[in-house]
């Protein structure tokens, strides 16, 4: 769906991270955790293409949803300049989100950097009694949404690359330790490729299934242009799947990390 929606509010979380709450009856009622929206950032051709941004949190009652984004280039810069009350041009909800199996009792979400955002709604929607969140940031100043993740998880572990907050090192260190002690039914990953690849390998040894959310540059965002290819297993061979339609969330075992 392409919709012109109203921005409820926009909040600066740190030097270059913003939370935008968008009012949308359609998206808030239809979206599930892990799906994304494709946003036209500003009118005209300054940022020509739409920008894919994950749905971070859905408030189905108040008919809003949140996105959280880092300012990287032209598009996200324009996005950060919107004000509450402004209209915004969004396509969504798009893609396939995370699978939530109500029979699971113990799950974990593992995210790094901008990859943490789609994981919040997994925690919110998942009925499992044990929900661990393992989040990684470059440094203390970049830690965001700690309260929200705290609220919806039973245990929250944070790692920073420089050790300025929480564990010094990578989320995969924390995950490795954690899986020794606890048996997860499912782990949800989102973040840098290397992190997900490593994490998936750790879980494999323990036979724990996982899902990963993949990033790729996009054109149409709906499966028509075939630009957002990612390598997936197909029997004994491989083929390109498309992140916008077949993903962004895939079963970990289907993805071929290069």
């Amino acid at each position, binding site marked *: 769906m392409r919709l012109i929606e109203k921005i409820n509010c926009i909040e600066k979380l740190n030097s270059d991270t913003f939370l935008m709450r968008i009012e949308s009856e359609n998206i808030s009622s239809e979206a599930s955790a892990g799906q994304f929206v494709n946003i036209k950032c500003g009118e005209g051709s300054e940022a*020509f293409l739409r920008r894919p941004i994950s749905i971070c949190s859905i408030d189905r009652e108040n008919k809003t949803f949140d996105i959280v984004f880092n300012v990287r280039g032209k598009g996200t810069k324009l996005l950060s300049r919107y004000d509450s009350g402004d209209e915004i041009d969004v396509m969504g909800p798009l893609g396939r989100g995370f699978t939530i199996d109500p029979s699971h009792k113990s799950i974990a979400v593992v995210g790094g950097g901008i990859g943490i955002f789609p994981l919040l709604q997994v925690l919110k929607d998942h009925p499992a009694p044990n929900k661990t969140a393992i989040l990684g940031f470059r440094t203390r100043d970049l830690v965001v949404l700690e309260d929200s993740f705290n609220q919806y998880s039973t245990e929250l572990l944070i790692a920073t690359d420089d050790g300025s907050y929480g564990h010094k090192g990578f989320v995969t260190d924390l995950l490795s330790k954690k899986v020794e002690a606890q048996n997860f039914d499912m782990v949800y990953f989102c973040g840098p490729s290397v992190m997900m690849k490593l994490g998936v390998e750790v879980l494999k040894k323990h036979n724990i299934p996982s899902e990963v959310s993949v990033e790729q540059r996009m*054109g149409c965002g*709906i499966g028509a242009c*075939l630009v957002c290819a990612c390598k997936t297993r197909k029997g004994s061979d491989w083929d390109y799947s498309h992140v916008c339609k077949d993903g962004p969330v895939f079963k970990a075992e289907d993805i071929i990390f290069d």
Partner: protein
Amino acid sequence: MSRKINMAVSFAGINLKNPVIAASGTFGFGREYSQYFDIGRLGGIAVKGLTLLPRKGNPPPRIAETPSGILNSVGLQNPGVHAFIKDEIPFIRKYNTAIIANASGNTVEDYEKITEILSDSDIDAIELNLSCPNVKEGCMSFGSTPQGVKKVVERVKKVAKKPLIVKLTPNVTDIVEIALAAQDAGADAVSLINTLLGMAIDAKTRRPILANITGGLSGPAVKPVALRMVYQVSKAVKIPVIGMGGISNGQDAVEFLLAGATAVMVGTAGFVNPYAWVETIDGIEAYMLENGVDDVNELIGGLITD
């Protein structure tokens, strides 16, 4: 009482209810955008470029944003012509729109064979892609010389039982010479432009943005080049010309019609605005109403250059 206007165009034995066609490679086989609007409103759909056998295409990233445009290097990922005939034609046929099969090959034999196969299928025309810049063999290498064009088109024409549109690459010194070669070899129409070969670099990582290094430039940025080529070609050839390259709305489309195009294709604009195709149709109508034009055919070649 609103005036009645005619939007239908006919050429090379193809009848379109309006001159707006979805450009090959930007519209898949119509499934995705059918969830956004009634694709039966389109004059036609040029489907994703087909090859004899399925193709995986190029490694990602396959797209880069550029000023007012994009580069793509999809590299003809497609399920092959047989899967198209079996799985996709029946879907598109549910809508009242012309099906244009965009076909590519590595060799003249490939082009011949795919044309034979498509000729026996339920499509309205074949668009011979002699212009894809993103594959190593065939395609643009045929389309870059009059000899190459002549060779492929002559052979294909002999076996084609559907109207034959030849799609031209803009990456040539003399587009008129290429179009004339297509005409002489029997093309029923030409379509242009395919993408301009370009490149984007990430200064930070010092790497090309596309895994394929180069890609094809499309979108509003190329419109001036496309318009010029459509103008030059339609003055020189007798066969109809289908114009494209950066069309985003009705006004852009009218410019191409005035320059000499009998129909237009819209591609990249749809990535930004999924309704670009239908809004282009509506926009042409609005222009006609505003300017007292009753028949869209009156616009074709109507540029005043005294």
